[in-house]
């Protein structure tokens, strides 16, 4: 029941997205605009300051991710479909996991374009170790999305939800951004040190496990009136 429900929700989100393509394009474009803004802020005398590439990447991911989360749940607010999802007999955790999967896929798509572009623009040798890079970016994205999906779902019926989401989300995802940036920096180093990358990766994996579990526990009580 649970797996089928998750699959149905993911498939539904993908179908809606493919029809409208709104989220994919706007998220990607927004992420790229962020990168551009950071470029103008950080580039001096035609050269990017050393080592800002990873920072720019993760800032763009977090801002674009925030936008995507808000928009995804705004969609479910339209015809009160989130309410309809709360009415089905399928376990509510399935709704959480389904939405989480959708967001992670959307962000993965964005990052697939974003990472190479940031690497080129900021001369960061991130792409030298693709396996490590993908692991760090993936676990960081999952951690961010795990917390973000819960908060965005929580806030659907709240007032001021647009501004409350980043207010709540960013302090809680501080470990993700630190680990993500330091991990990516370590990957971009000329003398690659697997130990350091492994440390940050472990932290991210631990974060993901703890917070997905916590979100699964609290989803039901928090969404029940």
């Amino acid at each position, binding site marked *: 029941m649970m797996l089928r429900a998750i699959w149905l929700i993911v498939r539904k989100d993908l179908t809606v997205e493919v029809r409208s393509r709104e989220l994919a394009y706007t998220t990607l474009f927004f992420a790229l605009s962020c990168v551009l803004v950071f470029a103008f802020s950080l580039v001096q005398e035609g050269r990017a300051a050393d080592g800002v590439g990873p920072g720019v990447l993760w800032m763009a991911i977090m801002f674009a991710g925030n936008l995507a989360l808000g928009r995804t749940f705004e969609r479910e607010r*339209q015809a*009160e479909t989130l309410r309809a999802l709360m009415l089905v007999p399928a376990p509510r955790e399935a709704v959480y996991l389904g939405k989480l999967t959708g967001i992670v896929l959307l962000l993965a798509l964005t990052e697939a374009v974003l990472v190479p572009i940031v690497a080129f623009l900021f001369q960061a040798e991130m792409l030298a170790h693709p396996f490590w890079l993908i692991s760090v970016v993936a676990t960081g994205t999952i951690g961010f999305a795990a917390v973000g999906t819960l908060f965005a779902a929580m806030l659907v019926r709240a007032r001021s939800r647009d501004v409350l989401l980043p207010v709540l989300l960013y302090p809680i995802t501080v470990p993700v951004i630190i680990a993500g940036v330091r991990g990516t920096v370590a990957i971009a180093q000329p003398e690659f040190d697997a130990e350091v990358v492994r440390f940050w990766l472990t932290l991210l994996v631990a974060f993901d496990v703890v917070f997905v579990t916590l979100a699964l526990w609290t989803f039901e009580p928090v969404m029940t*009136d």
Partner: protein
Amino acid sequence: MSVDFDEVAVEDVSRHFGRRRAVSRVTFRVSRGMILGLLGPNGAGKSTLLAMLATLLRPSSGNIRYGALDSSARASLRARIGVLGHDLFLYPELTARENLAFFGGLYGIADSDSRARTALERAGLDARRDDPVASLSRGMRQRVALERALIHDPRLALLDEPFTGLDDASTEALLARLRSLRDGGAIVILATHDLDLAEGLLDHALFLREGKVIQAMAAPGGLRATYRHVIGRS
């Protein structure tokens, strides 16, 4: 895991939001094969009451019993409850068939796609089944929404203002559908403003004002007169 029940008993149920009492000590009982109408002005608490019956909201006090079960068996109860809300619960980008198949699947129906087709045929919307819901007229969307609410053959059907924005043909179709639901043994509870329509349809009526039951009528006739008398023109 399939539960069923013969009657729904609302016992001294209240619900407040902060200082505002939305529903105040409501008690009533409905059984199979009955259509109950909740009548009253805006803000009377009809939608809140329906939300509690749907297990979306928990009462602040009192109890709602579904046969021998109470609302703590929420997850299994939901499989037997169908809700048509104020907002239609349909994804505008998906087609009518996709919407029905999606929710059908979530309600545990194995062959949700063929069920969706059958439902749309019955609603007379087979021709538009592959059109996105956003492109349908209000009346058609309402019909799809109704089928979505009923696709899993619920024992309890809750409808909030189902006649809003419907033309004559759709209204007739809805009335017929509700009657056949009732005859099939379902419990139907609907909230409506439309007293003329309710007149021929309801088996029982509850008049609500400011969250309280002002009057209950069995086999109601002369609804408009009673409404005016009981609730007034406020």
